[in-house]
């Protein structure tokens, strides 16, 4: 069963790789643009830290770690999650989702792995480079255990992002228009580039519990620094798994209500 799905995943990934390899100049262009956005994200931080040594009790190298996770997460989001799920909107609108539903494999799996953008790997590498610079400035290396916790939290963040996307797709069974919802989500996701302590009052609550941006970038950064407490980490992991289960349930319910575009 699992072997079959791994094989299916490989088939889908290979199809995207083959397509991407046909447009090799794009690799260069997306690489340059990734680096460009990196600079773009760093400019405000560099300006702020020219006049201050710490903001909301985050120093420059620590804030750089948040930016590093943000860049990596955005890379994975735009490389793995977004391409497939924006295509679902198109399929719902044109009615070709039916072709996916009749295939003898799980529909959620098929639509989630339909398309990848391999060149976004450059973003992930750029994020890694910024993390490297941050630890160089801190003058130490992260403890191996902390790296493990940070990676676990990063996976939890991906799970949450993916689940949010699935919920948006479910919603689009009824409202059809998906593309500008995805732009809205990307715009809000921008707030994850700063440590959560920068936000105050209601915003911090919203970005921690409703739309958990804190989990996505601040918690992994804290974990790398070794300042993450175990209870919050466990709660974050549990919460993200719970959220994924919820998304799965909503998906099954939405699918049973799905009426094709033609009917």
């Amino acid at each position, binding site marked *: 069963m699992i072997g079959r799905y791994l094989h299916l995943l490989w088939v889908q990934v290979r199809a995207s790789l083959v397509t991407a390899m046909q447009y090799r100049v*794009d690799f260069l*262009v997306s690489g340059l*643009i990734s680096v*460009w*956005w990196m*600079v*773009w994200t760093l*400019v*405000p931080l560099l*300006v*702020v830290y*020219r*006049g*201050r040594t*710490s*903001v*909301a*009790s985050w120093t420059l190298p620590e804030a750089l770690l948040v930016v590093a996770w943000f860049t990596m997460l955005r890379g994975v989001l735009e490389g793995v999650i977004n391409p497939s799920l924006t295509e679902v909107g198109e399929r719902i609108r044109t009615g070709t989702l039916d072709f996916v539903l009749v295939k003898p494999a799980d529909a959620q799996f098929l639509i989630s792995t339909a398309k990848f953008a391999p060149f976004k790997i450059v973003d992930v590498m750029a994020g890694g480079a910024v993390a490297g610079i941050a630890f160089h400035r801190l003058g130490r290396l992260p403890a191996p255990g902390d790296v493990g916790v940070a990676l676990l939290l990063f996976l939890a963040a991906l799970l949450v992002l993916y689940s949010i996307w699935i919920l948006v797709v479910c919603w689009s069974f009824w409202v059809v*228009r998906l593309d*500008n*919802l995805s*732009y*809205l989500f*990307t*715009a*809000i996701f*921008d*707030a994850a*580039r*700063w440590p959560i*302590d*920068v*936000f*105050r009052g209601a*915003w911090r609550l919203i970005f921690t519990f409703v739309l958990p941006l804190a989990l996505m970038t601040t918690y992994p950064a804290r974990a790398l620094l070794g300042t993450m407490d175990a209870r919050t980490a466990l709660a974050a992991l549990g919460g993200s798994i719970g959220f994924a289960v919820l998304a799965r349930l909503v998906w099954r319910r939405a699918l049973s209500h799905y009426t094709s575009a033609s009917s």
Partner: protein
Amino acid sequence: MSRVGAYTAILRIGLAEAVAYRAEFLVWMLTTTMPLVMLALWTAVAASGGPFQGFHQADFVAYYLAAMIVRTVTSTWVVWQMNQEIRMGTLSLRLLRPIHPFIAYSAEHLAAIPLRAALALPVAVILLLTAGGGHVVQADPVRIGALLGALAGAWLLLFLTMLVIGTLGLYLERSLAIYEVWWGLFAVMSGYLVPLELMPGWLRGASDYLPFRSMLGFPIELMIGRLSRADALRELGLQWGWVVVLLLLTVVAWRRGLRRFEAFGA
């Protein structure tokens, strides 16, 4: 006379479209979150160590709210529209019509402004209430007039830049990548991310010789009363100078690009 009639007809259609797709329109407007994200950062900065290079908390609030208003009123999406129409070939339909495509685009996009202005109004009210009426554009008829001119100029500059980049789509396949690069430059050099006054000296110096400040920073500074009357008028002259330059550039790029487009069709 019939030209004017055609233009007003396109304006009317554009307005009706904007009203018909108002929900979608609202979602688009809500994607302008960057000023708020930046404001959160600066609020934390001002809260933890007092004013930053002369910028108090209230100054940051006024600045980024004004940024939201100016972006809401002046931004257009013509570069994506042109890219789409060139790739799908529907640009040919526009060429057949007796009205120049750029004139038609301008009418379609001008028509969206009333609705955009209506959506920017609540932000403007908050700006007036929080920053204090005296702080925002002093009741000075000259500067209020200059602000209207500055907003019109900023809209034109952004629109013309998008037309130039959109026209590049006739030569290149990836004109949207050029737009992304341009947008990055714009965000840094126009005062969208960080007020230009807080930027390092060399960057501010460079922005004096580039059109970016005229596109956003200048109207914002004028709106929140950071410019004297003389400065405002000088910047306004500079801004409209850029409008003329970009207009010439647009015309040249289009004339040359069109020859390429015809070659595609043959």
